[in-house]
């Protein structure tokens, strides 16, 4: 192998060394923030002019009223807040956007989702736990939820609205994230031009999130945040468990084991099982049959940890080991009276489940 060592001249080295690759908090200049002194956070004030939609205007928007009713939101949840939750534009019409509500909703959601997963599946390995959180409240899922709530995107420009004599109130009940400038651009069928942020997301983590997907997710989070501001925590908790935690979580399809047998042996070591792990053949149709089928079991002494069926010995063995691992990782505790265990945010909560002992290293 040929390797060339290039010696850099000294001044060039100096220019290369000081790189800052950590996240630095910066003020959003578009908010026109003023402050007395940099460290006095109480004095921070945004001078960007925004106002809230008057309730009387919001009441005249049919999609907004219908969305409010479709989601069964309480009457104390004002329509103007709901409209604000659907607005992502910062500059277009001077209306308050959903930035704050989004953050609030995201925090509430991640608390309740984490609580649910940690109590319900205390032994989930960390990567699976993270994927499960994404599965319940990731951008894709929230986009799907937003769609299922019947939220529509406001895509017509001011001119198009004027020409079609569309009521100006309609847009207050629609998802507003497309800027007026982008709306007026000529669109070509089947061609989607990426925005700057989308291109950035493409480079950063190689997973493309369309602006619309992110906007829907943000609207769903903001509606949850708005519920908290108007009605409080109990209603928000009920709403999250009704709309997000009620979804089916395909946990058993989310595991990808690289060395399942080794992992099971390490796991049994960690649980200080004295007997060795053995894979035993339970039944077979016969090696010379046209389509042989084997049933293998993973045993620890006399305890059967898992069982698997396969068309070869290796397949049956691997399946039995994977089943044993899954039945350990997907264990879900129940309370003494057989009901589901209570969560820390429930009233008269008493800890009844278990605390996972962490992942095994291979």
């Amino acid at each position: 192998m040929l390797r060339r060592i290039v010696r850099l001249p000294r001044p060039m080295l100096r220019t290369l060394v000081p790189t800052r690759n950590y996240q630095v908090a910066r003020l959003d200049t578009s908010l026109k923030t003023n402050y007395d002194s940099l460290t006095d956070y109480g004095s921070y004030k945004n001078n960007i002019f925004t106002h809230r939609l008057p309730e009387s205007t919001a009441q005249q928007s049919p999609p907004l009223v219908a969305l409010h009713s479709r989601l069964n939101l309480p009457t104390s949840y004002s329509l103007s807040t709901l409209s604000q939750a659907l607005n992502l534009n910062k500059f277009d019409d001077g209306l308050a956007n959903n930035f704050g509500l989004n953050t609030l909703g995201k925090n509430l959601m991640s608390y309740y989702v984490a609580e649910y997963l940690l109590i319900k599946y205390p032994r989930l390995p960390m990567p699976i736990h993270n994927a499960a959180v994404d599965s319940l409240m990731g951008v894709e899922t929230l986009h799907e939820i937003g769609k299922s709530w019947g939220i529509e995107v406001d895509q017509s420009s001011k001119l198009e609205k004027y020409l079609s004599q569309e009521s100006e109130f309609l847009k207050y009940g629609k998802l507003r994230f497309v800027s007026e400038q982008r709306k007026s651009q000529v669109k070509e069928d089947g061609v989607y031009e990426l925005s700057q942020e989308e291109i950035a997301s493409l480079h950063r983590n190689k997973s493309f999130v369309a602006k619309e997907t992110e906007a829907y997710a943000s609207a769903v989070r903001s509606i949850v945040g708005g519920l908290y501001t108007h009605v409080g925590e109990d209603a928000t908790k009920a709403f999250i468990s009704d709309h997000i935690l009620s979804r089916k979580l395909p946990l058993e399809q989310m595991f990808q084991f690289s060395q399942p047998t080794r992992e099971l042996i390490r796991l049994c070591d960690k649980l200080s099982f004295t007997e060795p792990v053995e894979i035993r053949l339970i039944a077979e149709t016969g090696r010379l049959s046209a389509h042989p089928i084997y049933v293998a079991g993973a045993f620890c002494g006399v305890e059967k940890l898992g069982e698997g069926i396969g068309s070869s010995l290796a397949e049956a063995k691997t399946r039995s080991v994977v089943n044993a691992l899954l039945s350990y990782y997907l264990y879900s505790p129940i309370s003494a009276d057989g009901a589901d265990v209570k969560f820390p945010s429930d009233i008269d909560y008493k800890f009844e489940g278990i605390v996972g002992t962490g992942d095994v290293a291979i």
Partner: protein
Amino acid sequence: MPVKAIAKTSIARNGIGAFVLPCHKISVQYCNWGGSSSGLRQLLKSGKMDSIASQKSGVVFDVVKRVGHPKLIFHYNNSQKQEVDIANLEASQIVEKLNEYSQRSGAPLFKFNHKVLSNNDSVRGIWSPMHAPKSHRHKI
């Protein structure tokens, strides 16, 4: 890394927890002149349509005046649109159509010849001949 995760989105179960009506918008299209719209015109004039709309408070009703046969366009939350021709129908028949289509999920109808359609695995599991005691197994 002992175990890697495979990303999956959770599966919606409308009606478990909360139920959100899948039909979110109905466009009611009528013609002010044609005879085929007379039933719909009567429905609109009598105020019956208003009471239906107030009953279905989660659905946006969009009344459009356009030349041609009248129709109802149902917009569902799976981005599907269903057009229903209501030419020459009486008011009561139109109300029936409204009720029928506003309760649909928007998914196309299909023939299903099995007993159960479910996201979940069978509770009892699948019967296996390999787990019967050896004396009871089928011998060739």
